């Protein structure tokens, strides 16, 4: 029996929400084989799925393992689908984000989760790792033609490095070229204002919403 397109999209959504990688990959392979519109597959299927995973996390129904697993399954499906997208539709990438934990700070878990979620939502992410000097973060952002620079700091003693990013951009007259967002436990909106950054997020789902809203402007 042929399934309606809506039913296939719904199965894709469910496969992500149920964290069922086997089904998610099977459905993606079938979509390629059946010449489905793969942009629709991503946007009406898998992307809705990962959005629901994020909602369940916000509701306290899902926790870190489910959030990460959902994002990884989504990423694996995207890796499978992307090479088959029609030429010209590479624009599926919503934008490019360079992300790092600032120099002197070795905390990487939060930053890695944000990177994984952004990828799952279709952003191109360059995760430079932890303990990265501000100058290097800016250099890579220029090299990769990033839209957004995301800087994490988990220590009140290292968060000054976040401000340094903005200062370097200012010195090089690059403030208009990038949006700069901050993350990490000690970061508050008053710190964002003091740094003159474009925003901060308290968790990975908020980070995705923030990047989306900044790039929609």
């Amino acid at each position: 029996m042929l399934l309606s397109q809506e039913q296939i999209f719904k199965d894709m959504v469910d496969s992500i929400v149920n964290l069922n990688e086997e089904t998610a990959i099977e459905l993606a392979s079938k979509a390629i084989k059946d010449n489905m519109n793969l942009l629709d597959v991503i946007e009406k299927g898998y992307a809705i799925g990962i959005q629901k995973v994020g909602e369940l996390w916000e509701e306290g129904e899902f926790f870190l393992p489910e959030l990460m697993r959902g994002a990884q399954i989504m990423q694996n499906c995207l890796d499978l689908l992307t090479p088959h997208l029609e030429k010209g539709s590479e624009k599926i990438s919503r934008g490019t984000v360079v992300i790092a934990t600032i120099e002197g700070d070795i905390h990487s878990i939060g930053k890695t989760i944000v990177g994984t979620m952004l990828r799952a939502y279709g952003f191109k992410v360059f995760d430079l790792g932890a303990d990265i000097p501000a100058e290097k973060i800016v250099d890579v952002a220029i090299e990769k033609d990033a839209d957004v620079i995301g800087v994490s700091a988990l220590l009140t003693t290292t968060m000054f490095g976040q401000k340094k990013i903005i200062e370097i951009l200012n010195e090089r007259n690059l403030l208009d070229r990038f949006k700069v967002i901050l993350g990490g436990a000690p970061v508050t909106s008053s710190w964002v204002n003091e740094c003159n950054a474009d925003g901060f997020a308290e968790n990975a789902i908020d980070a995705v919403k923030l990047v989306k809203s900044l790039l929609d402007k």
Partner: protein
Amino acid sequence: MLFNEWLKNNSKIVLFDGGFGTELLRRGILEPGKLPDILNIEKSDMIVEIHKSYYDAGSDMCHSNTFGSTPLNLRTHSLEEKINEIIEKALDNIQKACPPGRLVVGDIGPTGKFRPPVGNASSEEWHSSFTTQTKLLEKGVDLFHIETISDLEEMLSAVRAVKKVSNKPLIASITYKKTKRGFFTIMGDPLEKCINTLENENVDVIGTNCTLGSGDMLELVKQAIDMTDMPISVKPNAGQPRLEGTKTHYDQPIEEFVRDIQEMINLGVKIVGGCCGTTPETISEIRKIIDLI
């Protein structure tokens, strides 16, 4: 053993110390990105002074400055080869400060490594790391406190490692986040499951510390107290941190914190203390209310 006597004595409320990392920051001793544990070697006088300030404030027992001294965590800071020296100095420092009749608690914190799908740590890796730390601590402590653990699996590895190496008393404290559905670890373990699991592992005290301020922790205690007959230990944060210029501030008034601690004692909590943002002054104020009981 003095700690066991305290546990058996129904009228005794045991007082821990307060924040250590935040105290180092407040005093301007900790440089950016530096692991507090290395200061056992580099600034031992200051470490002794902080321990002493907590004992002087009335703490019955204080933690060794070894929260981050597991091989796994030290490796992240390229300090793994210094583990023996760090822990030896840590024990030396706290023993210098500890007056007779008070106790030294071997502090064991998280490895900083998560299991899949969040990270790639395994239970074996955790277990081996906690075993190494416990062996080094064992000779110089009266009891152990595993704290700030956000994954029940990691806690189990730590508890089993400590119990394999030592017969000394063990407090096991998990850090919880408040969700719309109640208190859970960030890995999704609900409060009741954590308490039941720790009961089955035969720890001596079930505890919670960090993440939550005193108000939320009071709410947690109201639930926890109905879930177990075992002694409970609490170490809340002094509210949430706020950055001003280059300094971090914890704005919660001490009176409010102490009022919540008082209420937790009234509910039946056996061991109290403070985590991030609490100071010797906080401990001294808690001492006053305990002495009035």
